[in-house]
């Protein structure tokens, strides 16, 4: 029985073998709160950065929940929440052919140009 237990359960060993089901069951009581993605500005001068997600009944509750969940220790000065369903992504895959053309345009980078060492301030 102990065969499929792994310490990688974080707070203690948990079974990771096929006897543990993962497919969502057809739910009787599934709650229908939308999924929100949360972005936090760590401090003034920084961009908002994605930190995770949560479920909330509406936008205002999402902000409150995000505050409790992601900024318990002054991790932020501003929060954005947006429904995950409203995000448009570049493609279904993280490695996107959309970005391939920029790979061969090395002349867009300053290191492409050889400048003699004796030229100051460049």
């Amino acid at each position, binding site marked *: *029985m*102990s*065969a*499929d*237990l*792994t*310490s*990688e*359960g*974080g*707070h*203690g*060993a*948990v*079974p*990771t*073998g*096929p006897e*543990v*089901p*993962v497919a*969502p*069951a057809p*739910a009787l*009581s*599934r*709650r*229908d*709160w939308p*999924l929100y993605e949360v972005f936090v500005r760590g401090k003034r001068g920084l961009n908002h950065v994605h*930190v*995770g*997600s*949560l*479920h909330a*009944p*509406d936008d205002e*509750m999402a902000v409150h929940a995000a505050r409790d*969940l992601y900024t*318990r*220790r002054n991790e932020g000065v501003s929060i954005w929440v947006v429904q995950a369903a409203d995000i448009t*992504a570049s*493609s*279904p*895959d*993280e*490695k996107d052919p959309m970005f391939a053309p920029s790979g061969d345009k090395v002349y867009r980078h300053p290191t492409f140009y050889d400048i003699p060492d004796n030229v100051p301030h460049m």
Partner: protein
Amino acid sequence: MPAPVPDRPATSDEAALQARFDATIAADHRIEPRDWMPEGYRKTLIRQIAQHAHSEIIGMQPEGDWLLAAPSLRRKAILLAKVQDEAGHGMYLYSAAETLGADRADLTDKLIEGRQKYSSIFNYPTLTYADVGVIGWFVDGAAICNQVPLCRSSYGPYARAMIRVCKEESFHQRQGYELLMTMMRGTPEQRAMVQDAVDRWWWPSLMMFGPPDDDSPNSAQSMAWGIKRHSNDELRQRYVDMSVPQADVLGVTLPDPDLTYDPDSGHYRFGAIDWTEFKRVISGNGPANAERIARRRAARDDNAWVTEAATAYAAKHAS
């Protein structure tokens, strides 16, 4: 126990995807939610992350039992913050599991139905206030050993959640140890209380790392996928080596007559672990299994009206 089924790409398309996945893992780059991934990888991660989340959520209960009985306002505030953090850890992890296609409410249902598990350590009762300190020191200490390598997990959302969690765990361990130091400066009764808690929690803490390596056949696959970074025994040894000097400073005795320093290896050798107890507790027959699940079920069911009210309010104001 069925052997793990290796993921076999069915078509040449899939072979190309598999090759790209393998190359990403080999380069120690992260897999992100929208990447193609083998079904086995996805399922193993959901099991691991969901049950890690369950452990955080159920883990609030043994310490939560002492919130109203904490001996001072200072201790109460600390314990409240700690228990609240564990709720946060559970939420970060459910959030990561959802990026793999799991459904948060469904995972909670699976926990309550006993189809998914949580760490066996939380099935022991907290008999005295010293248990709060020992949990912080031992249980959160062991969690740190487990979780620090997970910050490099090959699955991006899990690794990022772990970084956030690890930043908070250090407070958990230190508040526990400080609490125990305070009790050890107290009366003989208080010192005895600490030693008693140490005696009860030490072995279950060692079991947190899972069965010995020669009894963990799936580890190799998880290692290859970069979702397991160290073997169970490696992590356990690291934990024992860290804990022994901490026990010395505190002035308690770890309940293991076989515990000795081995100068050749630089490690502490420890006695045999009672795996039958571990098996008994994780399969549902520990001292507090039924109570833990009953309370989680009550939290879901008794608070359903809050969920419904918030939903109704949101619907009314959306129009």
